[in-house]
């Protein structure tokens, strides 16, 4: 029996939801397991770094890497996987564009460490001790990965061949990607493996979106009784659908929740948050600055709203001072 193609899964700064998404393939996972040999999957199987390192370069057909990159350890791992894998798939919003972890780019490294090890409620650290990349203990040298200055997407650290969007990617697009890989029918390098058209296209509420939103107020989901049929933007909810790539079949709007943008922008957009802002804010009804400000007050956390999954890819990269 010839060798089955080898596949690796790895996780960086992530929540585990992407692993869950693989398990969510349900019985389809059996087809995957049948077709490939999994050589690395930390969440489910016991492989050590040395096992992977021992493999020849390019001997793994595909590496699926999820999570954003914050530490030196993550950098080391993904660089090694880049060498071992023929194809690297950036898996999920954190790997693609920083995801939730990248919201930390609003703060400097120092202020994060100071808060976590000194100021946060419940902290008892009179010596102001902080973890160090290298320390001595009874004559032994202990090392820890270094905490980098900012959270980066996978493609800001290594070259990426394909992207699977989503927080997490849906079973349907994962399965389609696996099948494309196994059949060798691959799109051009750099492609995001999901339709390159915004979410409204597949949203059942689309027809109820008026031409002119003429927004007078932004509302948060707990503040209103959400109409299950009507366009969420038309109800004053910040729905990122128009600025978000489709492919999820509008799962959230179908579940009466506004899209939060986890599939990222279409290929034509460089900065999802900025694009959404320039679009939806142009549709605010008032024209006077004061009245516009009053409408914008309805969005208490603009970065967390418009860049929930994409701060690493924001044109304004991070806070300096």
């Amino acid at each position: 029996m010839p060798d089955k193609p080898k596949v690796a899964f790895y996780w960086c700064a992530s929540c585990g939801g992407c692993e869950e998404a693989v398990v969510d393939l349900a019985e389809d996972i059996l087809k995957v397991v049948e077709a490939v040999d999994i050589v690395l999957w930390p969440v489910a199987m016991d492989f050590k770094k040395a096992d992977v390192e021992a493999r020849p370069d390019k001997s793994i057909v595909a590496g699926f890497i999820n999570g954003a990159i914050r530490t030196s350890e993550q950098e080391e791992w993904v660089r090694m996987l880049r060498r071992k894998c023929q194809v690297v798939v950036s898996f999920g919003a954190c790997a693609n564009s920083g995801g939730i972890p990248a919201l930390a780019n609003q703060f400097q490294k120092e202020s994060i460490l100071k808060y976590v090890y000194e100021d946060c409620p419940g902290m008892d650290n009179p010596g102001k001790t902080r973890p160090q990349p290298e320390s001595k203990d009874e004559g032994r040298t202990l090392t820890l990965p270094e905490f980098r200055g900012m959270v980066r997407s996978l493609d800001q650290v290594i070259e990426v061949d394909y992207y699977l969007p989503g927080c997490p990617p849906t079973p349907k697009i994962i399965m389609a990607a696996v099948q494309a890989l196994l059949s060798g029918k691959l799109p051009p390098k750099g492609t995001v493996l999901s339709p390159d058209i915004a979410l409204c296209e597949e949203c059942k509420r689309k027809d109820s979106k008026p031409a002119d939103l003429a927004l007078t107020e932004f509302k948060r989901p707990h503040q209103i009784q959400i109409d299950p049929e009507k366009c969420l933007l038309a109800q004053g909810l910040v729905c990122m659908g128009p600025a978000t790539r489709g492919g999820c079949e509008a799962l959230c709007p179908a579940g009466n929740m506004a899209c939060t943008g986890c599939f990222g922008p279409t290929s034509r957009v460089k900065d999802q948050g900025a694009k959404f802002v320039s679009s939806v804010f142009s549709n605010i009804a008032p024209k006077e600055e004061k009245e516009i400000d009053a409408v914008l007050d309805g969005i208490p956390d603009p970065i967390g709203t418009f860049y929930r999954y994409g701060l690493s890819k924001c044109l304004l990269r991070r806070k300096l001072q």
Partner: protein
Amino acid sequence: MSENKPKQENLPRIGFYVCHCGSNISSMVDVAAVQKYAAGLPGVVVSRDYKYMCSDPGQEMIAKDIKEHKLERLVVSACSPNLHEETFRKAAARGGLNPFYFQMVNIREHVAWVHTDKKAATEKAMQLVSAAIARVAFHQALDKKRVPVDPNVMVVGGGIAGIHAALTLANAGKKVTLVEREATIGGHMALFDKTFPTLDCAACILTPKMSAVKAHPNITLWTYSEVEKVEGYVGNYKVTVKRKPRYVKEDLCVGCMECIDACVFKEAKFADKFNQGLGKRKPVYIDFPQATPKVVLIDKDTCLHFKTGKCKQSCATACDRKAFDFNQKEETKELQVGAIVLATGFKAFDPARSPQYGYGRYPGVYTALEIERLVNASGPTSGEITLRDGKHPKAVGIIHCVGSRDAKTNKWCSRVCCMYSLKLAHLIKEHSGAEVYNFYIDMRAPGKAYEEFYDKLLGEGVHFIRGRVDEVTDWAMTPDEEGKLVLRVEDTLAGFVRRIPVDMVVLSTGLEPQADAQEVRRRFNIGCGTEGFFQERHPKLAPVNTFTDGIYIAGACQAPRDIPDTVAQAGAAAAEALALIDAGFVELEPNTSHVIEDECCGCKSCVPLCPYSAITFDEVKKKAVINEVLCKGCGVCAAACPSGSIVQNLFDDDEIFSEIRGILK
């Protein structure tokens, strides 16, 4: 998610040229250094500097290089694209290159003329050049679209400007619709008795032109009508006009005025608007005997039939042509035209805004337009100068600059008041023999034969006092002043304050934009200056054009002006309209936006944002559609499209981002 950067080996062959502009650029920018710098930039295969790139040899050099060096892109670093973009596009075309494979860098207005440090200016020029060279690689070959032009024209406003423009166009064989809001054409000029400086009779020169309009086979005259809506674009406008009911059928009435005699009101008792309220009219009326069209109309607010429903309608009975129709309704008409001339005129300043002059408080205070009617042989007094109490004034004071050159009201000079004040002074003196005093700030007489007219008045014994009148009062300080209106003024030539008692005060009110100028400008999608007059495209070189192609302006709607200038402008506007129509087509700049249909998700975000109503939503395909003929290339939709599915030619993301990278390099 990859950055779109053309690879070094795939870069198109770029030709770069930097202009000295004589010494305009080279005195502040080290042109040779810029040339050398550009030569080292990726893709550049030819880099040259030249004294005058726009000259024939300069253009020839470009065309020759394109052929010899197989250039695929062109960057010229010179003056503003407003000036010479077209020149170099043509040079590119002569060399066989698509004219839009070209980018211009403005290092004259943006660099040389605004900096004083040559080293820094040269560095800035280099950055701008680097940006243009980076962007030009992404340029696409584009074509200008041609759209046919509808040969018909609409003229809005039937004053002397509109009349002249309509006649000029009609004489050139174009079908013209002249739309006038009042019941008759003629405008302000129809109110005047004489015109300065020649003192020829206004009616004698105006009414033949009014009749010519009515009789012209190429002119459709719609009075008592207003433009309600304008849609479309240059060469292809669709206009909706509202025609108000006169309650008299225009095609039947011959203007015999029997109905006016027959009206149940035996005496005329309602204020006559045409005579500035100085005369009276009946509910059925005609503004003046030469009104055009010569058709009576009914004032609904005073007519007994409309007020009570109990009138025996003697007017209708008297009409042997059965022209009366009390059930007439407002009509809405549609017009297709290629060009529009706006000649909507001005509004006279309301002197109630300068209460120190007592207008409305003292019956002896008049506006200049009221005096125009009083001195007019066909006016309410047949040209006799009588005060409201019937007496004849022995002394008359004319105050210049009321609502002009005044920080409290209007800052601008209204241009015509000095001259018409001189004219009125002459006419008042001629008609009444009264002593006439002119109170002026500066005497402005800069037209042909205007200064000579002023000289003539000086010889006629009219008094001229240089100073802005402080107030008009009836408070007498001496027995001489009893029962008089006293003008208190600092005589700035004599150097003391004077009090001049008179019987009649004339306020030379200035010219203002029409009260609805803002609404009208929005309706026609043109601009207004800060003072509210319509904005010309260029104050010197395009004075009758607007920023909306195919819409022209003439006369006092653009700025205060006298009759000769107004007529000249009307002729110019007509000529511009003719140039557009006779070309037969318009070429549209290709910097328009378009929707990439497969990528549009149909979210409609762009639809309400287009200032030119160029975007519609295709309800069948569920996609936005941009009419590229209506698109002006402002880029609002491209910036707002949340999925990046609208692309603007010459301003796509690759072009803009590479330009930014080029600058930041």
